[in-house]
């Protein structure tokens, strides 16, 4: 409770979970009671329920554990097989990307942010560019908007397919892992054809996108859209209706809507509790108000709902992609503003001015008017936001990414509470954290 001593040096071990008997009441309140709106005494009571301290054991899970999705470390307090308390310890992948972002121009910023959530890099680029464009007051051409939507939805598919793979693997369905990776690779192949890279695309740039869609993109995407639905049917046969799969997931890791709202949770976890909140529909950005899709919600808030939501979101994404294919407008793929977007390659050979613009853009970058702005998009994991503060220069003064995984990880102690250790892996998997985004 000595929080007024704000600048004290923290001593070793303070990030860790200490035994229940040594934990202060306020911290116990944090772990459980505050979210359930209990009083301090009630939450102590709820947790202690007559187990002696020496019956409990604290174990570390991770950071080097194949099922913790990277370098997540969990400290679990167990009583036999029962998980009493959980504390996620993060920071093992912290590389100071927000600090790096302050040293890169707005032009270079997308290269940096795309490496945060490495399973859905295009969303990071998108949110950074939307924030930059809001500060600049630039209107993006329609074709660029629809290209961005196409790329977002393809990326959502690949990200959810990755979830299908890892979720299957974590629960012992190894064949599912192979199928999931296989389909994800098909999706990444399309992304590679368009952007040139499988991951960390750096494709969406302030003012539009880096390059126009290549010849034959329509056939590639159509081939993908024909390929994936039968595979999803296979997933249904293999897992959705299968009794073992249901036994492992249904009723495991249950969370309520109230808890989710209190914890700032967004995305599939919030929707699994029955709250139909999807930024694409509720606060439309790009042109999501012009396409038709359903927001998939669950009922019970358990691992199975979160699995089913993601599976069906792949189908909804394909629905959106089909509409984008039909309605892709022609025109520019980036804004024709010499101060923001580089000139086409051919112009550099013939025009001195174009060369100067190109040089200036890539050395100094463009100046962004003073101000601060927050923009959010619906990433596969929830609300992905970007808070930008510009002091009028070519580099942001502050670039903050609100990573949904970072906030969503706070649900883990509540999902795990009173569950079995064997279910812990299923629960971590269903939260679908990407540590690159948690630690940034």
């Amino acid at each position, binding site marked *: 409770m000595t*929080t*007024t*001593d*704000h*600048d004290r*040096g*923290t*001593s*070793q*071990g*303070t*990030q860790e979970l200490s035994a229940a008997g040594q934990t*202060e009441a*306020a*911290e116990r*309140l*944090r772990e459980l009671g*505050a*979210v359930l709106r209990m009083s301090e005494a009630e939450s102590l009571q709820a947790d202690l329920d007559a187990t002696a301290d020496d019956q409990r054991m604290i174990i570390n899970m991770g950071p080097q554990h194949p099922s913790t999705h990277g370098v997540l470390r969990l400290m679990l307090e167990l009583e036999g097989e029962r998980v009493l308390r959980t504390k996620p310890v*993060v*920071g093992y992948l*912290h590389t*100071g990307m*927000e*600090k790096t972002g*302050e*040293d890169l121009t707005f032009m270079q910023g997308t290269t940096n942010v795309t490496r945060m959530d490495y399973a859905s890099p295009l969303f990071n680029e998108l949110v950074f560019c939307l924030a930059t464009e*809001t*500060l*600049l*007051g630039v209107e993006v051409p329609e074709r660029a908007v629809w290209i961005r939507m196409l790329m977002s939805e393809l990326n959502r598919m690949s990200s959810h397919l990755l979830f299908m793979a890892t979720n299957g693997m974590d629960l012992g369905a190894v064949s599912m892992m192979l199928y999931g990776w296989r389909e994800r690779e098909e999706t990444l192949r399309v992304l590679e054809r368009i952007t040139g890279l499988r991951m960390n695309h750096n494709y969406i740039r302030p003012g539009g996108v880096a390059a126009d869609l290549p010849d034959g993109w329509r056939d590639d995407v159509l081939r993908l859209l024909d390929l994936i639905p039968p595979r999803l049917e296979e997933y249904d046969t293999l897992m959705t209706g299968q009794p073992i799969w249901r036994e492992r997931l249904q009723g495991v890791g249950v969370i309520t809507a109230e808890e989710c*709202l*209190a*914890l*700032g*949770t*967004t995305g599939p976890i919030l929707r699994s509790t029955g*709250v139909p*909140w999807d930024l694409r529909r*509720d*606060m439309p950005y790009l042109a999501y108000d012009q396409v038709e899709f359903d927001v998939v919600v669950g009922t019970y808030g358990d691992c199975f709902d979160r699995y089913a939501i993601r599976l069906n979101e792949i189908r909804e994404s394909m629905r959106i992609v089909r509409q984008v294919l039909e309605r892709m407008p022609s025109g520019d793929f980036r804004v024709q503003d010499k101060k923001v977007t580089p000139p086409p390659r051919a112009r550099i050979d013939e025009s001195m001015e174009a060369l100067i613009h190109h040089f200036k853009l890539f050395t100094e970058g463009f100046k962004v*008017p*003073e*101000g*601060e*702005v*927050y923009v*959010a998009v619906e990433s596969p994991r929830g*609300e992905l*936001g970007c*808070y930008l503060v510009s*002091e009028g220069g070519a580099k942001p*003064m*502050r670039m*903050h990414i*609100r990573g949904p995984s970072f*906030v969503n*990880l*706070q649900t883990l102690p509540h999902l795990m509470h009173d569950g079995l250790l064997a279910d812990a892996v299923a629960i971590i998997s269903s939260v679908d954290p990407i540590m690159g985004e948690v*630690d940034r």
Partner: protein
Amino acid sequence: MADATTPADPTEAREPEHEPVETLHGAPVTSSRGQRVAHPARDQLVAVVRALRNEGWLQCLDVIGVDYLTHPDRADLPEGVTPERFEVVYLLLHHGERARLRLRVQVPESDPVVPSLFAIHPGTEAPERETFDMFGIGFEGHPDLTRILMPEDWEGHPLRRDYAIGRIPVQFKGAPAAR
């Protein structure tokens, strides 16, 4: 200046009635690129957030620290709000009205402490720890204010503007001395 929406700016040809800025539970409200921003004082913060929560601003999505060391005289603050070195920004969400609201709280360098919102929005637990870790801003009433991203024995707060970005000595436990 593109940012011409600040109602407190007297040079703007706005209706004079708008002069005594719109307030929200006593906190002046401005607009930044069309987004609503409220500027509660530090001691108002908890009361404002609590009142807003009762009005249906159910989620606090994030807590963000900003260090204005290199940019002290910013133009987007309303009258009566003294710019300080640090700012803590809270993002609130109203699901019913589908609206967003940002709270910007000024935090002086000499006493970098703000009240914690943990009791109202438990989801601010991790973001407040992150802000403490990165800026050294304390959150009074936070149940477990420790570093979250940096190692426990790290010195300094990396996202402060006077924290150099270049090479730094390796500070991990047991590592050989700086090269």
